């Protein structure tokens, strides 16, 4: 399918705000406390280290975004260089991550709002927020960009007030000293822990088909936003440690609000809560835009249903892709399972980082002559460092995060198989798996009945389990036989 209809309506400022607003989320307001206990005042070093790690991969985004300015971001880069299942997997994780991230931010937004209006219902507020931003996203990319710009400017204004007021108050507080509470390893652990606060800037790449003058604006917006984030985060951390000791932040639900209260009083808490609320909203806005454009690009190449490629007649936005993704996002938000969605989105974003750097290297080797308005300096050092540092972050992920990642990978593999492999082969494969499940369930039933394994402390539950296992075994045996004998029809 040809890609046409998306309008290039975002200028450099809006693209920059997409990057900054998509990255600064409510997470920033809560993660600093634990990070400070790991690294002490050396959290500033961890902040800069994180920013540099992020910058390595953002250089790759800048080169690829300017060279291939089509919708889909990482997925489009992987499609042009790696192809096949790897490109699908990149798009799959990007799509899932952005939906999960939007769900995470909407629940975070509802929690923050509940500090101001305690009577609100958290899941309902989260779902309502997603509906509002889905409508804005359907209404047009210009409206999305304008909403984002206004919100990010207000948020930066509040953070700027916090920084300037804090610097003014603390000018006689004595010299600043770097101290690492947990030593060098503590700084590394803090680096891995706070890396999530740099995730989200790749949304510029996803929306690149709607950015004006892409050759200049895409690399400029990506690189400027990642540099601005290093500056913003480092200054905030500096002000925090000029006002309080790292030990004081232990157990604080919102360390930034705690520090703000120290020198601004109740006004500080109000302002920082408002900044957190706005940060959540900008992240939701960016994530909805990102997941819909990835789904649109996946449909363009036949991986997702064709309806996801349909654009709204008046607004020229991928209306079905926005709606489908937002329904899943709202369902996730309604469950209120914050940890699960946060872990899943972290995993997906980090996998995306690895694939983008690999795509850059593959494309440089296979298509050295394509027009590249921007080229990463010190190639191949920066993409290699991007891959190594991303793998380093994977090592620090919780085991549960890795398990969720594997689950999502398997789900993606099944969908890819069903969409891309001939029907007969799929049916034969599923039939074989059905027979395998049948045999396993039969064995399980036998082991439970013969008391070889203990399923539960309760005898009744064990008996029920064996009956269920026999039922599953028979059902899957029949399903397997039907799939195998009828796959050639």
């Amino acid at each position, binding site marked *: 399918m040809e890609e046409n209809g998306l309008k290039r309506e975002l200028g450099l400022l809006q693209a920059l705000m997409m990057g900054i607003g998509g990255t600064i989320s409510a997470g920033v307001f809560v993660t600093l406390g634990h990070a400070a206990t790991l690294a002490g005042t050396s959290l500033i070093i961890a902040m800069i280290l994180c920013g540099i790690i992020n910058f390595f991969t953002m250089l790759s985004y800048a080169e690829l975004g300017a060279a291939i300015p089509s919708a889909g971001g990482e997925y489009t880069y992987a499609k042009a260089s790696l192809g096949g299942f790897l490109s699908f997997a990149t798009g799959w994780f990007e799509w899932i991550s952005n939906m999960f991230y939007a769900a995470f931010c909407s629940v975070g937004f509802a929690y923050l709002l509940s500090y101001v209006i305690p009577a609100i219902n958290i899941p309902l507020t989260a779902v309502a927020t997603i509906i509002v931003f889905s409508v804005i996203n359907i209404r047009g990319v210009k409206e999305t960009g304008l909403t984002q710009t206004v919100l990010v400017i207000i948020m930066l204004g509040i953070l700027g007030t916090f920084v300037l007021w804090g610097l003014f108050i603390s000018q006689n507080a004595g010299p600043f000293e770097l101290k690492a509470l947990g030593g060098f390893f503590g700084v590394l652990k803090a680096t891995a822990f706070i890396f999530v606060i740099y995730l989200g800037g790749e949304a510029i790449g996803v929306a690149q088909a709607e950015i004006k003058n892409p050759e200049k604006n895409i690399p400029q917006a990506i690189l400027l936003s990642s540099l601005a984030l290093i500056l913003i985060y480092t200054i905030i951390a500096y002000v925090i440690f000029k006002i309080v000791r790292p030990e004081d932040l232990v157990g604080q639900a919102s360390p930034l609000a705690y520090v703000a209260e120290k020198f601004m009083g109740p006004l500080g808490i109000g302002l920082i809560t408002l900044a957190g609320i706005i940060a959540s909203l900008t992240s939701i806005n960016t994530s909805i835009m990102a997941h819909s454009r990835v789904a649109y690009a996946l449909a363009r190449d036949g991986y997702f249903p064709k309806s996801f490629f349909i654009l709204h007649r008046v607004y020229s936005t991928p209306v079905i892709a926005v709606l489908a993704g937002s329904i899943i996002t709202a369902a996730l938000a309604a469950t209120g399972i914050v940890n699960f969605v946060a872990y899943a989105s972290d995993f997906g974003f980090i996998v995306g980082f690895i694939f983008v750097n690999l795509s850059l290297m593959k494309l440089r080797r296979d298509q050295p002559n394509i027009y590249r308005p921007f080229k990463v300096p010190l190639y191949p050092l920066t993409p290699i460092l991007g891959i190594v540092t991303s793998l380093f972050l994977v090592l620090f992920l919780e085991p549960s995060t890795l398990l969720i990642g594997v689950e999502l990978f398997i789900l993606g593999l099944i969908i890819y198989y069903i969409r891309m492999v001939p*029907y007969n082969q799929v049916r034969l494969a599923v039939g074989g798996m059905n027979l395998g499940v049948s045999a396993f369930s039969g064995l399980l039933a036998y082991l439970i009945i013969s008391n070889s394994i203990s399923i539960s402390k309760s005898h009744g539950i064990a008996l029920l389990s064996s009956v269920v296992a026999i039922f599953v075994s028979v059902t899957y045996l029949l399903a397997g036989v039907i*799939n195998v004998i009828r796959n050639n*029809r």
Partner: protein
Amino acid sequence: MVRIGKAASIIGGIQCGLGGLVSVVAFLIYASSSIRDVLAITLEEVYLHIFLFLVFGIFSILSGLLLIYGEGSEG
């Protein structure tokens, strides 16, 4: 042949139902400590059980849908 098609649809429906039930159990394991107690699942094993239940649930739903639509489109 029509009978096989009907049987396939029923079996497919059962598979979808089983998949849905197992996915709900996966969620309950995550959300309810009393369910974890009944099933004798320790805290360390929670994510492993959720993983296994979700994989089975998703596979079961997809397999059921394949049977229903496969036979429906051919029959």
